[in-house]
């Protein structure tokens, strides 16, 4: 019995291979979209982590000497006290014309070592004992080919160009700096109960590895992708729900017949459930392959970004991560089950002899619409409540989910209302019929249209967020990073020497000196600045008292960052206590993206007067931009500064912009894909409605409307639905962007971004939506145009 019933169930697919293909493809596309985003996100994170770990060790914290090098004895003392630290000796050496950066590490304790391309050659004795070995990229090895005095080279793809990674003993010899250590990496796993560093090594200071800024930028990239992943999941879920639901509807008659022929409801339900699972797995696997492909196509862009950022070649290839496979399959199966539960329950409860519901477009649909009209706002309200009650990032995402789902549920009643309104206004008979027909078809297209709505809203929302982010951030970069070069000295003494050396060679040397301080009860920093046009002209002030800069210059005024101003209500006119017996009036507030802490800016003399021993090791250099690279090179050579000590501002900006460009490429590609999938859902729905449509179309045709006209109307119909949905998606997308920028971003990073609107993008999107609608209707329309009259006549001849 089961075999026979299963045969009957499956025979449907054999007779309708097209339907089978669309169902599987629909599920597969949804899975593909979801998993592609997952894969890119996971891969990008892994790549960042790898790249960051390669250069700094993933320790995150480093110990540096307040002046000069760290003696080997200090390292040993820390170790003997239990501190898990790893020594790094860094320096430059000249090889003929080129300069080579030597990175000496202790292979036994350094957290990450590169893989060599010639593993056989890595005899540990050869690496650790004189003359040692240098790990370099193939290109660097090429450049060093004729260097006679260097240890043999081992090539690896995992390093930046111009860097030689080697054992610290080899580095000592090459740099002639025996017993010296540049910095100590603080390893992540420290035993409990260690003696404090201040007591063990008072000459060392703890700082973060210099990749904080980059990390914040990459965080924005991930936030973007995460939001996208979530939204694509919602789109995917609707599509899966739609396709799976339709597969039930199509076979309603067959289910009845099977029941009438004596198949128990339980067995039928189980069979249908089994079929659903099998389909979900098949489609899920297919989707994974597709998603993998999509990710593989997009990933090189991500990899290119990383390359630009770190100067380190990062693999553009994709590794199959079990978590990724699981999430993709889970999405397919979970989505299909979620969608199928409704259908399966229907099958289980279906009366054998129900009148074949001609088209559930009237009463039932109207009631369903009312339910949705109520559930939609309820969900939105739930989201708002979640933000209020749960709060934080979770609350933000719940708000996002509530808004999106609620809006999707509101779509059918809204569309029905709009169509009814249009029907009342329409005068032409064709227009009237078109609108009436549209309303009648709405229930069958609802899910596809919801998917389209979400896809479009996602497009608007994420697009607006990324664009706003970029606009704001590049503007801020221009304002804050005005100096052409930033220099980090290793000690105050070197700082003073640098300043003397630089002064005659540049337009201005702007010392960047700060003291850690408690500002309004929270940790923060007080910066001292010299009075210079660079600040007056460029600093991103968002609120200012008149003559603010003069007040700062004469030490009576202080500038605070937006975070501090917002948190403590410190706007111009208020007074801020900077320290014991040190108060100043707030004369301006500036934006300070990427910094979670409080910050204040005072005149340099004021800072030096109130805080003793303010380090003087950072400088901004004003110089003609084209001269900056030469000066940087001279500076490195003259003071033997490591690579990270001289930062070319143009490079920082270029790296930041590169991230956004790539974010754009990836976002745009995913957007088009999402739209494509939603368009595909419309196509599937239209094709499914096809058989049900003939009884609607045939009488109209019999009454003298040509098939050509009917085909045209078919396209118009789809265009109208897509267009209306796009119009409704626009406000939803803007709300979404607002939530992303004002709620998610604020909770995730602590600063708010202004929202910029891009109406041209909307027009492009409307066009895309219309295109998707037209493409989806193209196939049914062509079919209608070519339909033999005999097929239309069957409507009249055959019993329905």
């Amino acid at each position: 019995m089961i075999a026979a019933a299963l045969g009957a169930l499956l025979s449907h697919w054999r007779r309708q291979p097209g339907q089978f293909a669309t169902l599987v493809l629909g599920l597969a596309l949804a899975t593909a979209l979801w998993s592609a985003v997952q894969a890119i996100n996971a891969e990008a994170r892994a790549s960042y982590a790898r790249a960051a770990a390669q250069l700094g060790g993933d320790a995150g914290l480093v110990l540096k000497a307040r002046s000069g090098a760290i003696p080997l004895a200090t390292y040993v003392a820390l170790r003997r006290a239990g501190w898990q630290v790893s020594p790094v000796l860094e320096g430059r050496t000249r090889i003929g014309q080129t300069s080579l950066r030597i990175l000496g590490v202790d292979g036994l304790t350094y957290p990450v070592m590169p893989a060599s391309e010639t593993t056989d050659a890595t005899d540990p004795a050869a690496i650790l004992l004189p003359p040692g070995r240098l790990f370099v990229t193939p290109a660097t090895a090429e450049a060093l080919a004729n260097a006679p005095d260097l240890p043999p080279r081992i090539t690896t793809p995992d390093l930046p160009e111009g860097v030689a990674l080697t054992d610290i003993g080899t580095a000592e010899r090459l740099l002639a700096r025996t017993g010296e250590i540049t910095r100590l990496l603080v390893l992540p796993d420290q035993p409990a109960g260690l003696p404090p560093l201040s007591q063990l090594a008072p000459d060392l200071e703890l700082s973060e590895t210099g990749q904080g800024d980059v990390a914040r930028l990459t965080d924005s990239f991930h936030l973007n992708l995460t939001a996208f992943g979530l939204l694509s999941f919602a789109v995917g879920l609707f599509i899966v729900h739609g396709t799976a639901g339709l597969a039930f509807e199509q076979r309603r008659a067959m289910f009845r017949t099977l029941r009438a022929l004596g198949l128990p409801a339980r067995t039928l339900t189980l069979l249908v459930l089994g079929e659903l699972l099998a389909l979900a797995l098949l489609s899920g696997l297919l989707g994974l392959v597709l998603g993998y492909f999509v990710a593989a196509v997009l990933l090189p862009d991500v990899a290119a970004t990383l390359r630009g950022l770190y100067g380190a070649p990062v693999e553009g290839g994709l590794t199959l991560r079990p978590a990724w496979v699981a999430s993709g399959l889970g999405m397919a199966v979970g989505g299909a089950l979620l969608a199928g539960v409704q259908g399966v329950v229907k099958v289980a409860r279906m009366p054998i002899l129900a009148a074949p519901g001609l088209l559930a477009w009237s009463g039932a649909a109207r009631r369903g619409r009312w339910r949705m009209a109520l559930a939609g706002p309820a969900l939105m309200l739930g989201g708002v409540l979640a933000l209020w009650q749960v709060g934080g990032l979770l609350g933000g995402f719940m708000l996002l989910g509530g808004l999106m789902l609620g809006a999707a549920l509101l779509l059918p009643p809204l569309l029905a209302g709009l169509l009814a309104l249009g029907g009342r206004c329409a005068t032409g008979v064709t227009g009237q019929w078109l609108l009436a027909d549209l309303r009648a078809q709405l229930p069958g297209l609802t899910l596809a249209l919801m998917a389209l709505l979400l896809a479009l809203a996602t497009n608007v929302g994420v697009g607006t967020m990324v664009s706003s982010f970029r606009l704001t951030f590049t503007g801020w970069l221009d304002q804050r990073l005005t100096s052409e070069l930033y220099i980090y000295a290793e000690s105050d003494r070197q700082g003073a020497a640098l300043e003397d050396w630089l002064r005659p060679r540049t337009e201005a040397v702007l010392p960047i000196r700060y003291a850690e301080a408690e500002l309004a009860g929270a940790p923060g920093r007080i910066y001292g600045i010299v009075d210079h046009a660079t600040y007056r002209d460029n600093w991103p002030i968002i609120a200012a008292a008149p003559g603010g800069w003069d007040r700062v210059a004469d030490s009576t005024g202080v500038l605070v960052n937006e975070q501090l101003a917002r948190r403590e209500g410190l706007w111009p006119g208020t007074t801020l206590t900077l320290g014991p017996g040190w108060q100043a009036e707030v004369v301006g507030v500036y934006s300070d993206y990427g910094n979670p802490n409080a910050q204040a800016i005072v005149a340099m003399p004021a800072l030096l007067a109130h805080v003793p021993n303010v380090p003087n090791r950072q400088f901004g250099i004003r110089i003609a931009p084209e001269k900056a690279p030469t000066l940087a090179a001279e500076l490195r050579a003259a003071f033997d500064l490591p690579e990270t000590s001289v930062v070319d501002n143009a490079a920082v900006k270029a790296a930041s912009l590169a991230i956004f460009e790539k974010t754009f490429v990836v976002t745009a590609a995913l957007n088009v894909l999402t739209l494509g999938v939603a368009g595909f859902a419309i196509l599937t729905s239209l094709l499914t409605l096809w058989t049900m449509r003939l009884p609607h179309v045939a009488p109209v045709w019999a009454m003298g409307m040509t098939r050509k006209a009917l085909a045209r109307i078919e396209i118009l119909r789809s265009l109208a639905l897509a267009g209306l949905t796009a119009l409704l998606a626009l406000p939803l997308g803007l709300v979404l962007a607002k939530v992303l920028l004002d709620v998610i971003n604020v909770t995730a990073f602590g600063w708010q971004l202004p929202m910029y609107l891009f109406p041209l993008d909307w027009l492009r999107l409307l066009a895309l939506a219309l295109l998707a609608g037209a493409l989806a209707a193209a196939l049914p329309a062509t079919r209608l145009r070519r339909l033999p009259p005999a097929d239309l006549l069957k409507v009249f001849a055959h019993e329905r």
Partner: protein
Amino acid sequence: MNARLLALLLLCLPGFATAQGFAGLGTDAQGFAVPDPAHRLSFPADHGAHPEFRIEWWYLTATLTGEDGRDYGIQWTLFRSALAPYEAEGWASPQLWMAHAALTTPDRHFVAERRARGGIGQAGVSAEPFLAYLDDWEMRATAPGIVALSLSARGQDFSYALTLEAQGPLVLQGDQGYSVKSRDGHASHYYSQPAYDVTGTLTLPDGPVRVTGQGWLDREWSSQPLSGTQSGWDWFSLSFEGGEKMMGFRLRDTAGDFTAATWISPDGSAEALPEGALSVEPLTTSQVAGRGVPTRWRLDLPAKGLSVDVTALNPQAWMTTSFPYWEGPVTITGSHAGKGYLEMTGY
């Protein structure tokens, strides 16, 4: 830490690289000193390091009982592995050091590992006064020789601080401390102090526990103790309630297993038993870290009327170190009752 790094680190430790035999102990001893059967051990000098040999270890295990009545075990091991047969100052030293510490309870097993370069003072061993250390882990003499020791180590989630007092003489294993490890004549210098009384404190995530028990120190150095066909060993140190002790091991060899044993009387006098006198047989295999490891054994030493079952206190005592192995306390039942330690490598 990624797998590549691990691979490189293993390469950095040639004495323990998985090149041939377990952890590469079967490699040829070019330039390194070879154990000499004529050599007579002399103390305190031989408590210190022997840089001219490729590998060496200071290996202490203890079976303990807590105030709470529960059984515990601890391990403290310092390995020395030489890239070349000499010592030098600074980073140029070819001597590499590695330390393992473990704390075993009936249901938990804590492991920590430390690595260091020789020559810079981060790790080393001095003979008199005796001190073996790596980072802040120490085995330090509180009296001349190694009669009284203080022992400490800590990992992320555990630590211990113990004092040890020897209750008997040193035991020279094999022939006057020359211990043969295969029929081809591979051998090591090997002596033990099997009779420490131990007291001290273990610190677990739940808090400190005062403990007392028995400790056993093994000292061994060589340049190639394993033959190329040997895949690993099963090593037992057992203390019986009657005061006798036994050290026994089996070297698993494709050309037939090799067993050896030393019987130690309550007064501390030792008798080396001939090859094959001890028979060991795995009874129960447990799934540990994705592989099958025997955690219950039958040991027979007919010459001493010994026929016992040896059962792991915690079958999951897997050492998740750079080269993984099994090491943990055991309980002895049968003709003799008692406690001991079991080490199994190459599974």
